[in-house]
């Protein structure tokens, strides 16, 4: 049946948690693209059949005309589904650049595995565009995501961050599970990468 596969592809966008990516379904995507090509072949053959019969495609309303129309509309519907699938995923990828990090290696592995090759490329290019904007306005827009309440926050280190990092000129030992009182702007970077968590209350 026309368009059934494309519908399944779109459903993949909505299954799973909101805002969470599912693995890129290249197989299904290619099947839908193949259906598009088949639609196109039928469309073309119907048009040439009408031309051979000496009928004007613009004005004749016979079975072949409607057959061709159905194939055209089905192709467009499939195209819109394909585009919606890729475009909506691309929007989620843009979101990753804001919430997780601008570098591919900053993305957790389980997210990376869900991206197609082209999507990874897109992520890199889009991040580069963002970075170039930030360097032009000379402001890091990736920090300060929530309105500040207090200049200092309490954080717990979740992972072995290492001793090498320096926060506001002070080198502390950021061993796992240790707790610190840091400047919010300094800590945010590590919180967004999942290396620290903010302690509230």
């Amino acid at each position, binding site marked *: 049946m026309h368009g059934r596969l494309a519908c399944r592809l779109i459903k993949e966008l909505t299954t799973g948690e909101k805002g969470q990516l599912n693995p890129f379904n290249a197989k299904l995507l290619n099947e839908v693209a193949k259906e598009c090509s088949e639609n196109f072949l039928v469309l073309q053959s119907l048009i040439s059949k009408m031309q051979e019969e000496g009928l004007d495609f613009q004005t004749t309303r016979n079975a072949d005309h409607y057959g061709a129309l159905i194939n055209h509309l089905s192709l467009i519907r499939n195209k819109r589904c394909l585009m919606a699938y890729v475009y909506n995923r691309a929007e989620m990828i843009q979101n990753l650049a804001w919430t997780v990090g601008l570098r591919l290696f900053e993305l957790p592995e389980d997210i990376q595995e869900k991206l197609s090759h082209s999507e990874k490329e897109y992520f890199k290019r889009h991040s580069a565009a963002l970075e*170039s904007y930030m360097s032009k306005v000379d402001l890091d827009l990736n920090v300060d995501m929530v309105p*500040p309440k207090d200049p*200092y926050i309490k954080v717990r280190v979740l992972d072995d961050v290492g001793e090498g990092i320096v926060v506001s000129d002070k080198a502390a030992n950021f061993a796992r599970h240790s707790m610190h009182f840091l400047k919010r702007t300094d800590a945010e970077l590590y919180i967004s990468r999942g290396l620290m968590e903010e302690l509230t209350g």
Partner: protein
Amino acid sequence: MATDFGEGSTAEANEYETLMSTTDVQLLKTAWRNEKAAPEILQFQVQLVKRATEQIQLMEETVEEFEESGMDPLTVSLYQMDLDRAQFLLRSYLRIRLQKVEKYMFYIRKNDNLRNRLSEPERVFVNRCIDDMEKHLGDTVLSKLPDNYQSARRQSIISEEDDMVPEPQLETFVACKSSNRFVSLRLVDSERPLEMERHDVSFVLYKVIEEKVGVDIDLV
């Protein structure tokens, strides 16, 4: 005497209020709120952003000096907090704009009126966004489709105009406030105009106040 004094203090209070509402921080806050609540991208506030950036830099230097001169930590942290807030406003303002550009890139580029609202770096950004998105869509989907169906913005070659471009929803309700004086709005479905005094809050269709946002009306 007593009445004189009373009037004087109201006038003074009004003056104070006007003065406060025209400080750059307040202006930035208003611009930020408008941008945050408006469904489409608004005019970039060139001068305001420039002034805010300069003032933030100045503040940063001041705070640093205070820290070095061993000033009372409480005082320093109060300054720091003020600085953080101003910085958040500026960053968030620019961020919201970029996210709108990301969302409506194709729509913004084909619409001269909207494109002219962007700052120079934003214009560069929108072009790069579109190039990257077109390449991605092209590689993943469009190159696999028949020739006549390869446009990213049109469904097929017979579409006469762009019919696959995501557009902002302008027919949406927003809460707004008259910012300086009496404003009269002509609503679509009512014969009587909606009259708003200064500081009155109303809930109206964005389309109706579209052209007044940032001038007579601010969004809340």
